[in-house]
């Protein structure tokens, strides 16, 4: 991986010349692997996305270490051809090819030359999206050390893949749904610093504030020492023996090495955590936030990111002289206030029992309910792809279809937010992890992807069509 990266830029795409090749500084993999279109120009391909230059180095090192063993082996190519590609961070492209090498997208455009031993997924007439991201999830991976404890052939993972999910929160790690594999599973270990700032526990709140204050004072003294040590020989660095465990976590928060996650539901909790984040200047993700719509501007200004469920249902508090309770417009109002949103269903697990349509299998439908509440289709899609990746802090690797991002794709037979749409293929790290026709889950439902509602002439409950005895006489 070279540091130089080419990005999918809207300027380039408007011209129609959409194929983006690797820059010349990347090692050549043979003439056949080079896409025919050359990068338009270095100036046009300057980074315009939110990806900052100073991304945490941890992800960069992970990339290098994980790709090193693969580089020794034969290069692995996979291309998704002929589909309608929703890049999410750019426009929708008709009839384009997405080519990946060793799990990373290397080319995206209409005239990409495929290398000879390239695995091909034909998406002609189908829609291609980036893999969906579950910003809150349980039961797909093992809760701790997902690479060691996950059932990689588990039904939960298969069902989640059938729902189009390629990345999910696993305990406090961000992990991919690498079906049948453990390599390259963990995308980001220790995603969050968990905070408890509940209004019900005033002592804990006071303790947290005191701890943050202590760490901030330390950081200021450290800064002062760094300034003075060149001129003043007597300058001493501040005492730091105590700076471990929770204090070390808080230090990471205040130096923006980590982000905080906390459950915050009602107006008070949300406003208080937003105030705290603004006062101490750290990034925070709030989960729940069903009353977020009442304090949306405050959350937006404080840079709070939110994990919301559009269908969450809470009665308004009649005693309160202010807006209370949940609304389906919550996601739209928060988005309008500039809050980065991730949408998750009511049950953030895979349930093979109970109420249908409320678990991770229907992540896309939960986003569709946000559209019902006024959110645009594009923003709803972002809330389960790139914005969910930003909430998890992994938007440098996943969440959109761009060159040099991970080859995590969903190929479906219609608009992702439509209730009839089923996933045909889910691709994780450039490998087909789910193929509808091959798994017994949905292979029998509209196998050719027809969009008509089937009509049955018999009554509910439907009977399975067994051959009746004596019919063959």
């Amino acid at each position, binding site marked *: 991986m070279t540091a130089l990266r080419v990005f999918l830029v809207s300027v380039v795409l408007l011209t129609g010349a959409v194929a983006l090749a690797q820059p010349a500084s990347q090692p050549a993999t043979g003439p056949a692997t080079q896409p025919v279109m050359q990068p338009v120009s270095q100036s046009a391909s300057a980074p315009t996305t939110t990806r900052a230059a100073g991304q945490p180095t941890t992800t960069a090192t992970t990339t290098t270490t994980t790709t090193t063993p693969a580089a020794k082996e034969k290069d692995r190519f996979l291309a998704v051809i002929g589909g309608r590609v929703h890049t999410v961070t750019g426009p929708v492209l008709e009839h384009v090819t997405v080519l990946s090498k060793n799990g990373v997208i290397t080319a995206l455009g209409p005239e990409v030359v495929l290398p000879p031993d390239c695995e091909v997924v034909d998406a002609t007439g189908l829609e291609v999206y980036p893999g969906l991201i579950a910003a809150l999830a349980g039961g797909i991976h093992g809760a701790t050390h997902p690479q*060691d404890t*996950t059932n990689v*052939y588990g039904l939960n993972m298969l069902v989640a893949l059938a729902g189009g999910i390629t990345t999910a929160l696993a305990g406090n790690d961000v992990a991919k749904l690498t079906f*049948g594999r*453990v390599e390259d599973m963990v995308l980001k270990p220790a995603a969050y610093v968990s905070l408890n700032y509940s209004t019900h526990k005033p002592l804990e709140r006071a303790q947290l504030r005191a701890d943050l204050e202590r760490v901030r004072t330390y950081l200021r003294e450290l800064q002062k020492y760094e300034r003075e040590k060149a001129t003043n020989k007597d300058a001493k660095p501040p005492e730091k023996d105590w700076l471990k465990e929770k204090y070390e976590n808080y230090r990471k928060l205040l130096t923006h090495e980590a982000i905080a996650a906390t459950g915050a539901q009602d107006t008070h909790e949300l406003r208080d955590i937003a105030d705290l984040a603004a006062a101490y200047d750290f990034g925070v993700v709030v989960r729940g936030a069903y009353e977020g719509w009442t304090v949306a501007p405050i959350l937006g200004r404080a840079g709070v990111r939110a994990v919301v469920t559009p269908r969450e249902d809470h009665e308004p508090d009649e005693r309160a002289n202010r807006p209370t309770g949940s609304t389906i417009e919550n996601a739209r109002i928060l988005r309008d206030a500039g809050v980065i949103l991730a949408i998750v269903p009511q049950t953030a697990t895979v349930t093979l029992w109970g109420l249908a349509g409320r678990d991770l299998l229907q992540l896309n439908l939960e986003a569709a309910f946000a559209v019902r509440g006024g959110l645009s289709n594009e923003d709803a899609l972002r809330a389960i792809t790139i914005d969910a990746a930003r909430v998890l802090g992994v938007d440098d690797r996943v969440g959109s279809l761009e060159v040099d991002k991970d080859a995590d794709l969903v190929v479906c037979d219609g608009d992702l937010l439509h209730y009839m749409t089923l996933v045909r293929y889910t691709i994780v790290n450039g490998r087909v992890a789910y193929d509808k026709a091959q798994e*017994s889950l949905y292979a029998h439902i509209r196998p050719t992807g027809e969009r008509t509602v089937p009509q049955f002439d018999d009554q509910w409950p439907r009977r399975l069509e067994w051959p009746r005895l004596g019919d063959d006489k």
Partner: protein
Amino acid sequence: MKRATKRSAAADDEATKGGGALVVFALLFASVVVLGGEPPQDDERFVVIKAGRIITNAGKEIRDGVIVLSGGKIRNVGTGIEYPVNAQVIDAHNRTVMPGLIDPSTRIGLPGYQRTGVHGDWSAASEDFIPPVVREDILDAGYTALALVPAGVGIPGRAIVVRTAGPTDERVLVSPAYLRVTPDKRVFRDALEKAQQEIERIDKARQEFEKKQQEQKPSTQAASQPGSQPASQPAFQPPAIDPPHQVLVDLIQKKPDVFALLELNNASDYVQMSDVLTKFDIAHHFLARNGWESDLSYVVARMGEEKAQIILQPIISRVPASVERIHLVRMFAQAGCEVSLTPVSDSPREFRELLGRVANLVREGWSREAALKAVTLNPAHLLGLDKRLGSIEKDKDADLIFLDGDPLDPRARVREVMILGEIVHRAEVPE
């Protein structure tokens, strides 16, 4: 010296025909028996089994054949074989003779207990106290050898391979045998990493020792008088290895006669264990609990490529969350694995039903020959005993079972069990 008297098997058949049920009798007591011109030993009496049918597991089945035994070993097998006149003849013309069954992993008759962590220094050797009632059941089922495993999760210890009966001093076949590893990736990996650290620690100590020797050499040479004996070099004393990890050190250093038996509950366990094996290349075989519902079909191809030796349960499984039945045993065998079978559970009932379940596997489309090897020769091979057990061939131990019909016929049952040439068990069957 008298001339050796020899009779043909065919002539003997004539003599003993109509003997009814199993008849054991000695023909002659000759003072000299010649086979290769050697003077006889008292304990080298020959025993001859004249069997209606012999399933050798090495080539074709033999009809009306003869097995010649002496000293508890098979000396010859075939038809029309000559044998000494004074040999003890066992008439088994109405029996099918096959090698005794071998269970490569069981705890039948042994109590369960909780143990976690790494106990490589533990062995099931101190546990060979199967109650006599259960032992009768095991013999009744036709088992002549068992690998008894220690209980617990993690790395509970090493197995012991024992005969189910026979003389006490010949009872133990392998002790300690393989290392049992239950499907816990982290325990397995951490144990191997600890063992690797132990190796590095010893290497470091050796280097330091040698360095010290190098440093001392010039001074000792200077001190020693010419012509005098050089001072004997003290040998390197390696620091002690943590006993529970000794066997893991042996595995990493590829010592012979030790391997890990990795247990798998599902396909994912194979992927997880393989992840550890990419870092530590150690000798290993697998035990997969395929059970009634199993997703092991996901890894059949990968394990077949590896030519893995795998122990399975004789079950037609079902794909999880479906009604699809899959013949995993056949799938593994056809993919290239060497399959051994173990009863579904450690209950005497399942031991008795094993041959019936194997028959079911054959009925559902597996070769009869492969199925019979999977309960005899393959487990012997897995346990490293294929030179001694598992088939009826020259120089193998005479651990045989006598059935009154085909082993895969549900009406047939094991009537006699022979261990080291001696009948140790007879089934009581009402006539």
